[in-house]
């Protein structure tokens, strides 16, 4: 008999912290990561030695990057492990930190994501390919943009509006890599990248760090943590790509099955969601994924976007952090930063980005492979 996360001990996010996502700089990764961890410890009002286990999400730093960073917090001897799962590395680290606490093995665990922009080395399966060297991620999503536009009669301008909204949100986020509002003309007039995608519709890969501390009810009581600021993780689901029927793209199908399982685990429907942080590395993804999650029928995303239903203060705020397009996507930290944003919103501590009355948030990431992770948090 297997059990899902919310059938185990309740697990809560009790501390969140970032080092701002930024353009590549001389700042060592150690400093990026320590800044985020110390911010999360301060937010939870606990000291480092109470952390019983650490999950380090990183894709680009190289082997065993965690200990040379964590030792500067005082070497406690607590276990640590590294999680690499492409763009979903941070989400995966968060899931396993939650599982460790929910299972009763630990009362307090840390998930920290840290990365610098380094060359990506892909594995060699020794199977030939026709032209994969010519198809980088933005071209995968340029192809998807073309398919979405034709199937749903959506214009280039319609899809680019996702970037206008997310740059507007990012402009209010001190942890965002891009903090500037952009008009539709600016978005459309930027450098052409691939297909109809322009540079302001693509995530700027940069560097940064994000950390969250999770704790059990025992841990919260024992350490005197403010239970009023603790946000419960009510669902955690990870999936990987299957073989889908001919003609069905994996992007939407994988997100749909993962989100469906997470909503069922939390006993919620898409209409219950106040906030979604999702993988908008490229504009078209946001429309694809809100439809896959079930916020609206396929092809209706553009209408919701134009009606303001996806804005902060709308029916469901999508990417109030600015998303990958504006907040940024340093890879390892990204999925953990999403959790931090949702926690901030559900606590009512998001300041000028606050989505009023937010009680339920969903975090979604996909990673090359493909993998998909969905978490639900509730006040």
């Amino acid at each position: 008999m297997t059990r899902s996360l919310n059938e185990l001990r309740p697990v809560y996010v009790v501390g969140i912290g970032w080092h701002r996502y930024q353009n590549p700089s001389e700042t060592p990764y150690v400093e990026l990561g320590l800044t985020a961890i110390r911010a999360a410890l301060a937010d939870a009002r606990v000291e480092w030695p109470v952390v019983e286990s650490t999950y380090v999400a990183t894709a680009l730093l190289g082997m065993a990057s965690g200990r040379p960073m964590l030792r500067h917090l005082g070497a406690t001897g607590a276990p640590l492990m590294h999680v690499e799962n492409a763009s979903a590395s941070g989400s995966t680290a968060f899931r396993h930190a939650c599982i460790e606490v929910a299972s009763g093995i630990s009362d307090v665990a840390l998930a920290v994501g840290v990365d610098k922009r380094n060359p990506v080395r892909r594995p060699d399966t020794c199977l030939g390919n026709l032209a994969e060297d010519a198809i980088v991620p933005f071209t995968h999503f340029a192809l998807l943009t073309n398919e979405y536009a034709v199937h749903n009669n959506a214009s280039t301008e319609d899809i680019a509006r996702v970037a206008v909204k997310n740059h507007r949100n990012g402009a209010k986020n001190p942890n965002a890599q891009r903090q500037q509002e952009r008009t539709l003309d600016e978005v459309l007039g930027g450098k052409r990248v691939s297909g109809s995608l322009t540079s302001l519709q693509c995530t700027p890969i940069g560097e940064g760090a994000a950390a969250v501390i999770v704790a059990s009810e025992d841990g919260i009581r024992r350490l005197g943590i403010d239970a009023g600021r603790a946000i419960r993780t009510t669902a955690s689901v990870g999936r990987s790509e299957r073989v889908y029927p001919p003609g069905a793209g994996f992007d939407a199908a994988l997100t749909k099955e993962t989100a469906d399982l997470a909503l069922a685990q939390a006993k919620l429907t898409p209409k219950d969601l106040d906030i979604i942080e999702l993988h908008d590395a490229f504009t078209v993804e946001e429309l694809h994924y809100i439809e896959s999650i079930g916020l609206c029928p396929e092809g209706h995303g553009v209408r919701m976007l134009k009606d303001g239903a996806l804005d902060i203060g709308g029916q469901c705020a999508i990417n109030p952090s600015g998303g990958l397009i504006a907040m940024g996507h340093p890879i390892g930290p990204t999925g953990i930063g999403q959790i931090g944003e949702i926690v901030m919103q559900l606590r009512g501590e998001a300041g000028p980005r606050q989505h009023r009355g937010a009680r339920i948030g969903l975090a979604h990431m996909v990673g090359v492979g493909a993998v998909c992770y969905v978490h639900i948090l509730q006040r």
Partner: protein
Amino acid sequence: MQPGELLKPGLYSAAPNDRAGATVRLKGGRCRCGYFFFPMQTYGCERCGSHGDALTPCELSADGTLLAEATVHLHADKNRPTPFTIVKVALDDGPVIRTLLAEDSAPVAPGRRVTGRLAPVGQSESGETVLDLRFSIAS
């Protein structure tokens, strides 16, 4: 023009005297479960997990229907000067592949019939024309 040297002979073949490269066939595979895949491999079937002699080589037609296209304007690799166009094609024999559109192809759009041919892409060290697979609007 002789057929010349194939850039990726492990992935496709053509009849020796085919000057236009129109007889190109893709070297795919078929599993005992009925699943067609490209390229041929013996690691195991993605649908059912069977391996070994459950997987047999199977020539696939290079005819198909265009699912999507994207013209790339920015590419880090200097060996692939931009612009070039990537097409996503649902082959009539099943697999979906992604590769390059022929430079002399008429513009394509989702739903159009397309076909793969061999096109000259350079010269080998021995002076032979090197051919690679490119898609274009089906004639």
